[in-house]
């Protein structure tokens, strides 16, 4: 089950990325080769990008890859480590629940109610913002699974992963 869900996420992320490259390349090609710049690729690319960032961000959380200063958790062992990891996971879960799901739901429903539409594609902006509560649900799910593991006295997979830093 978990593997299927991750498989779907990975497929979606990779596909969105490929479409993005296609979109931007198309924009250059239409401008030069065809002499007629496309007015929709800009918007398609920006909206796909928002979705990529948010669902990718949720996936990245599931992989334990977000940047964190883990000096203090790493110093602790046994029960203390489990407790501090549980606190961290609870904080992330509350952010997902209150800000991303609840705040995001309000944002989506307000913009859908108000009928705000995007300038080029003329699609409801609410659909663009839907990425936030969607990513919130995925993060919350990962956090709940992690909390269950911690309650059973085990460190969840994502905390064991040695997250390589990025620049």
């Amino acid at each position, binding site marked *: 089950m978990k593997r299927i869900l991750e498989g779907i996420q990975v497929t979606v992320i990779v596909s969105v990325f490929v479409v993005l490259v296609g979109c931007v390349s198309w924009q250059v090609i239409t*401008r030069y080769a065809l*002499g*007629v*710049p496309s*007015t929709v690729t*800009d*918007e398609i690319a920006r909206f796909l990008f928002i979705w990529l960032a948010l669902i990718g961000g949720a996936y990245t959380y599931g992989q334990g890859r977000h940047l964190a200063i883990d000096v203090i958790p790493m110093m602790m062992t046994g029960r203390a480590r489990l407790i501090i990891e549980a606190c961290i996971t609870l904080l992330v879960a509350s952010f997902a629940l209150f800000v991303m799901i609840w705040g995001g739901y*309000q*944002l989506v429903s*307000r*913009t859908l109610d*108000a*009928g*705000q*539409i*995007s*300038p*080029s594609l*003329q699609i409801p*902006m609410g659909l663009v913002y839907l990425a936030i509560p969607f990513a919130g649900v995925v993060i919350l799910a990962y956090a709940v699974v992690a909390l269950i593991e911690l309650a059973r006295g085990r460190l969840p997979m994502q905390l064991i992963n040695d997250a390589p830093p990025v620049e």
Partner: protein
Amino acid sequence: ALGSAADAKTLRLSHNNPPDHPLHIAMQLMADRAEELTDGDLKIRIYPNGQLGNQRESMELVQNCSLDMAKSNTSELEAFYPEYAAFNLPFLFESEEHFWSIINGDIGAEVLTGSVDNGFRGISYLTEGARSFYASKPINSPADLQGMKIRVQPSPSAIRMVELLGGNPTPIAWGELYSALQQGVVDGAENNPTALTTGRHGEVAKFFSLDEHTMVPSVVVISNCAWDGLSDDEKAALDTAAKESMSFQRDQWQGIVDETFAQAEADMGVTVVEVDKAPFIEAVAPMIEETAATSPEIADLISRIQAAAN
């Protein structure tokens, strides 16, 4: 901010212009007058430069009552209250007098309060004059626009207008526009004259062709929550202050345009070109019917604006 007097209200107003911009100065005048008229009970704190968000974000915050006030131009407002689309139609206003009689009159007032069901109301229009094309060559007729890549704002009406005129509308971010013009990523742009100086575009586009296709005003809006929280006296004071800033801005604007052209001509070598508007008007005429077809309210608004022309 926590220690301020209990009964003084401070409204937050967000806009995306720099603090030395004529619109900021007009809004500051409104803030000062509102405070004066209410003996300090009503304060307006202005956040320039898009610190609290761009125009769209600020409008969303206003609709949600997370922000009290915002300034947005009618291009962006179209998405929040469709009636504003009428103001974005090219050549719907036949002259500046026509434009002023509309926004100062009943029609303008009706549109301002018409958006209450959408969570906000407008309190004033601030003019930014007429928008025209500028490029490295004069644009005397739509034929000159043929095949030119023209930067437009991401607004459906701006895109459609350039298409009808025979140009290729190209949405490019404002911040990249200077280098895009310089390097030929786009061949021209359209804006009001101050873009020549505030955006330094006069350095890279030497001909400003006065076709004056649109007069897109900015609107200062206030959220329903903030408005309903004001006493009747405060509402009246805010209204007076807003109207005063509106006429102040109108009086200032022509001077600003003259000064802008003088500076652009002297310092940047820009040539301001007078053009015959008739072929432009003819080319974009279908837009008026297309927009009128979107809703009976907009159709009615357009025909009333047209009727007021003479």
